[in-house]
């Protein structure tokens, strides 16, 4: 491993200050223009055949192997197809038409809250998850990346599959009979030694079951632990209102937004809705030249900071200080004010003035990582600004019995250590891995006489529990859950449990002494008791069909916060030390997704890192400590230490190190093994969201990081275009004018075939950079829809990731606080496609409707097309990436898309399978395809409505309207490629009082 030079910040700053320097940049390597970076650019395929996976296969050997396989392939072409069987039903279900998918409304669970979804099912196999646009809480549909990737969990061969006892295979029946005497003994003592541990939940049926159970065992307790707890949110509401009130926000009504380490765009149970609402305030059109303005103060780079018009990076305590300054300025008593830096003071003053100027249309949102005082302060500010009832709606708690989860766990662990817990039932979660390190849950667990675990995976916790029961996937069981607004979804299964899975309802029924009751009976009986009357069957059918129980949302309440301000000021950061900030991982969350290959390989929105987490540092801090990305350091806090690779992140606050939780799993399936470092090891109960006084020491070792931020780069061209609102008003067409649009016939090649008459469709896409929040739901949706494989860390480092749709992240401005841009890039479906003319075998051709087609069977893998593609959107199967052998994964595939094999080029098809099926239906009914009838997978998943697909011949279509906007521009149009995918340029809404124009 060559020695990596520490960052030369001066050189980078000089290059940024240089007028000829790049306006938009992607990574520090690009800025420092090192030899490695030049080299990386020059070799689009750095993985050329001379070295193959590092196992010493050289070019000559490769050719020998290939010639042999060509000969064999030639012979095999002469054989006939193997015989196939058709296996009909005995009695075909009534609504099922073979060959046509069915869609069912149900709900997944995210942190205990409902994620209402529509699931596509092919002949009984769920294959794709979409949002449910009929659901009142999520009227725009859309999903996040986790929802999309959940289907892979269902079919993961590494799932827990059998009931086991002390490591040997057992059965559900044996568990029931083994528990009977234990429960009997507990019944005698009133359940004094009986504890249940689960995460937060909103399920009405489970709540009723728990109530029933605790009535039987009055001394028993139901404890709660979530690795990413919402304790601060609850405690903040408790402090402000004296009750665990839930707040829901209306970003669509907010003109000025202040985010205090906010995390509402990702990971929040309402993120999908908030993203849609936020986008509606950022959608700028010819007839709606208006933007909301967002201020973000944050202690770790986040999506909220990336989309904010003004962003300030602060140490964690500094966010609270800033909040107090803003609060004082808007007339909320906030106690003693710590002095702010000049920049923070200017930021606070401008934000406060703006919030005050938009009374009733402003919004202050605090993030889960901030202490309860900041949450309480945010509630008081919203009240003082007249936002309650306008942009903030307060309701009763949606969660069942919202207890502070850290207190709950701490009390449980104390009892376990004292040996007073005789029966512990752990539902889901993974406390052995993710409980605060000082509690040492594992040791306490060893003192419990009988432990039962209901878990989806075989993980660290199941290793230390006596009984293990595999948990059902949300698509395998009946249940019910509330969405963030309280609306109930009765979740129905789409498939019988693939293994011996049991649901939480069934397990609790066993504990309550009725082991033969199914989830279906439990849920249905609960609702029957809630809806007495003759029309229950109609209610039940309607609720299941629609995917929600009508009118079950919680009404908004009119509450005023108490005036008493909690004057706690965060302890000043220790001088010299670093502030350590813990955040849930953007793709693995708390670690539960560690075995999901799609989430592992999904580049994290800001760092573009895959397959690892890292200690994130600002450039200045890294330079001060003499560190560069990929250096392994010993990261210590509170006497605990882990080894972690460093990643330098522009815009990261100085003297802060961010550690994403969830990596470093010790007991996990093959996918998650050996990835990242365990940040939980540093997290203690006194400092769940971060610690001060952390230190970093260089170890001298290096750990390669698979970051895609420089992959498929389109070096130095004006790909992202942006302006401030004022400049946009001056010249709405600034983006178009920044590019060149050569005449159609300015080409050496024969002009493209004549387009079809205007009565026939011409497909095109427009992507609005103003509403894109970079959440990457589209990337995973594309992967799920198009059977795209996962390639693994080694291959990602070689630049071989197979995502058809990538999100390019660009920075603009200085290293300390650059503006961030997200740009989803997929095949442009050029009308003059450069790839088509160089293919020697006609494997990529143009359709009359304007699609650039990839014909896998013709492709011989020359990769000329990819070399000639200026957008770098073609992906080559260097190896057999698609798993064609694992039986459970075969069930997951979209049957309408070919699973590609080794040696074949592939790329975005505009979801041609969806176009085909809609076109066939429209031809059959004899009327043209309606606008919006075809949705590409990325478009359907996008929570912000940033991606629009349709017929550009139809002047009335949404996509044609977007392309007629003055902001519309194409990438690299100077090459006369005439891309069918275009972008709407980004417009910022900066506050002139702060400055910093785009």
């Amino acid at each position, binding site marked *: 491993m060559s020695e990596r030079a520490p960052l030369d910040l001066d050189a980078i700053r000089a290059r940024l200050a240089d007028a000829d320097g790049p306006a938009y940049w992607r990574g520090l390597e690009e800025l420092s223009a090192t030899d490695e970076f030049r080299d990386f650019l020059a070799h689009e395929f750095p993985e050329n055949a001379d070295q193959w996976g590092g196992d010493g296969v050289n070019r000559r050997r490769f050719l020998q192997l290939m010639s042999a396989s060509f000969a064999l392939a030639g012979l095999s072409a*002469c054989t006939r197809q193997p015989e196939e069987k058709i296996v009909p039903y005995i009695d075909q279900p009534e609504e099922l038409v073979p060959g046509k998918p069915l869609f069912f409304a149900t709900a997944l669970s995210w942190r205990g809250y409902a994620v209402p979804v529509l699931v596509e099912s092919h002949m009984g196999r769920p294959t794709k998850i979409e949002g449910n646009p009929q659901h009142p809480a999520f009227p725009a549909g859309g999903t996040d990346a986790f929802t999309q990737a959940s289907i892979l969990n269902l079919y993961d061969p590494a799932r827990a599959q059998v009931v086991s006892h002390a490591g040997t295979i057992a059965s559900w029946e044996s568990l029931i009979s083994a528990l009977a005497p234990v429960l009997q003994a507990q019944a005698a003592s009133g359940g004094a030694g009986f504890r249940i541990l689960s995460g937060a939940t909103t399920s009405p049926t489970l709540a009723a079951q728990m109530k029933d159970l605790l009535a039987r065992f009055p001394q028993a307790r139901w404890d709660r632990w979530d690795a990413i707890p919402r304790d601060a949110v609850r405690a903040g509401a408790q402090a402000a209102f004296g009750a665990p009130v839930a707040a829901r926000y209306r970003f669509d009504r907010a003109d000025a937004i202040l985010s205090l380490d906010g995390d509402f765009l990702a990971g929040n149970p309402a993120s999908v809705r908030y993203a849609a609402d936020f986008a509606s305030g950022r959608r700028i059109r010819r007839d709606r030249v208006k933007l909301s303005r967002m201020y973000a103060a944050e202690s770790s780079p986040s999506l909220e900071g990336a989309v904010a018009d003004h962003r300030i990076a602060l140490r964690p305590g500094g966010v609270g200080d800033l909040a107090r300054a803003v609060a004082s300025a808007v007339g909320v008593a906030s106690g003693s004010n710590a002095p702010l830096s000049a920049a923070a003071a200017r930021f606070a003053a401008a934000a406060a003035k703006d919030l005050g100027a938009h009374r009733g249309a402003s919004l202050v949102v605090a993030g889960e990582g901030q202490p309860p005082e900041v949450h309480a302060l945010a509630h008081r500010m919203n009240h003082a600004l007249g936002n309650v009832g306008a942009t903030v709606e307060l309701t009763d708690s949606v969660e069942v019995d919202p207890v502070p989860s850290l207190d709950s766990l701490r009390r449980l662990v104390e009892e376990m250590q004292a040996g007073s817990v005789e029966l512990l039932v752990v539902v889901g979660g993974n406390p052995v891995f993710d409980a605060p390190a000082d509690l040492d849950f594992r040791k306490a667990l060893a003192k419990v006489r009988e432990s039962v675990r209901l878990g989806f995976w075989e993980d660290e916790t199941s290793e230390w529990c006596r009984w293990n029961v595999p948990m059902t996937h949300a698509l395998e069981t009946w249940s019910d859950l509330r969405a963030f607004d309280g609306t109930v979804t009765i979740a129905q299964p789409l498939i019988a449990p693939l293994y011996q899975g049991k649901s939480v309802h069934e397990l609790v029924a066993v504990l309550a002494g009725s082991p033969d009751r199914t989830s279906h009976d439990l849920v249905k009986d609960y609702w029957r008791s809630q809806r007495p009357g003759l029309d229950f069957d109609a209610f039940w059918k309607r609720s299941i069909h629609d995917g929600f129980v009508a009118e079950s949302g919680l009404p908004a309440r009119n509450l005023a916060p108490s005036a008493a301000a909690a004057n706690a000021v965060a302890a000043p950061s220790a001088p010299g030390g670093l502030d350590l900030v813990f955040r849930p991982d953007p793709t693995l969350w708390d670690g539960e997704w560690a075995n999901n290959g799609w989430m592992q390989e999904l580049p994290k929105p800001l760092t573009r890192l895959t397959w690892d987490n890292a200690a994130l540092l600002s450039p200045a801090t890294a330079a001060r400590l003499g560190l560069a990305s990929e250096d392994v350091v010993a990261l210590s806090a509170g006497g605990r230490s882990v080894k972690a690779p460093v990643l330098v992140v522009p815009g990261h606050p100085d003297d802060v190190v961010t550690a994403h939780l969830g990596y470093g799993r010790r007991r996990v399936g093959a996918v998650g093994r050996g990835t990242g470092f365990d940040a939980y090891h540093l997290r203690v109960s006194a400092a769940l969201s971060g610690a001060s006084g952390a230190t970093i020491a260089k170890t001298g070792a290096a750990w390669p990081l698979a970051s895609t931020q420089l992959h498929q780069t389109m070096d130095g061209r004006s790909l992202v275009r942006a302006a401030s609102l004022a400049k946009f008003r001056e010249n709405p067409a600034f983006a178009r004018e920044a590019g060149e649009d050569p005449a159609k016939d300015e080409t050496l090649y024969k002009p493209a075939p004549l387009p079809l008459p205007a009565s026939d469709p011409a497909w095109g896409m427009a992507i609005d950079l103003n509403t894109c929040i970079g959440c990457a739901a589209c990337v995973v949706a594309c992967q799920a829809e198009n059977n795209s494989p996962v390639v693994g860390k080694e291959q990602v480092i070689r630049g071989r990731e197979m995502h058809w749709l990538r999100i390019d992240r660009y920075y603009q401005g200085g290293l300390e606080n650059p503006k961030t841009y997200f740009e989803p890039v997929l095949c442009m479906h050029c009308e003059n496609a450069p790839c088509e003319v160089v293919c020697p075998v006609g494997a990529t051709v143009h359709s009359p409707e304007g699609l650039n087609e990839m014909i896998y069977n013709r492709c011989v893998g020359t990769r000329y097309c990819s070399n000639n593609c200026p957008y770098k959107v073609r992906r080559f199967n260097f190896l057999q990436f698609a798993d064609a052998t694992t039986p459970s994964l075969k069930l997951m595939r979209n049957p309408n898309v070919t699973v590609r094999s080794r040696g074949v080029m592939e790329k975005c098809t505009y979801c041609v399978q969806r176009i085909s099926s809609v076109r066939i239906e429209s031809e059959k009914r004899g009327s043209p395809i309606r606008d919006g009838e075809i949705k590409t997978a990325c478009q359907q998943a996008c929570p912000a409505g940033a991606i629009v697909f349709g017929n550009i011949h139809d002047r009335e279509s949404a996509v044609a309207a977007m392309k007629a906007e003055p902001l519309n521009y194409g990438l690299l149009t100077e090459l006369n490629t005439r891309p069918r995918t275009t972008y709407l340029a980004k417009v910022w809404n900066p506050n002139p009082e702060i400055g910093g124009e785009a």
Partner: protein
Amino acid sequence: MQIFHRSTNFLAKLSIFGSLFIAAGLAGAAWEIYQSPWTTQVNVPKEQPVPFSHEHHVRGLGLDCRYCHTSVETSAFAGIPPVKTCMTCHSQIWTNAEMLEPVRASYRNGRSIEWTRVHDLPQFVYFNHSIHVNKGIGCASCHGRVDEMPITWQVNSLYMRWCLSCHRDPKPFLRPRDQIFNMSYAPPADQAALGERLAKEYHLLNTAQMTDCVTCHR
């Protein structure tokens, strides 16, 4: 020094000349194999677990295609009847026939009959029955006179050029919609005019769209 006799020159020339014929012969043989029923399975009756006779059920009893292939008008897949469909009649007639035992056994024990696929397109072809049936292509145009087959076989190669022969010019094969399921339909003398008229009436896609790769491959 000369090792070979002068006459071997002739042998060398002959073998060079002859190799052309050998190459041509091999190519011809490969072509024949490619075309042969061994590869295409044309006219090769497939053995089935139950010797189901379309001839008997369609011509003899007059069952409509859609009685069993229920989804042919709505779905990509025409549908193979569930055993229950067989049992609607065979619980009443031929209830003890030895030949039908697999059907009854299947219904009894709930295990499906595994039929052998007769028309088997490769996995990279996405064929849709419903659009063909809705656009005036009769069953017999591709499947032949199924009503004359005691055991079902394939009458067309299903090779791409065979598909394309119609996709390039479907007019000779178009039928009125009420004749789609008529096995014995014969095109009228003025098929040219009829095809022209029906192509307009059915709003067929233009040739470029119909011969576009992604129409069938994706």
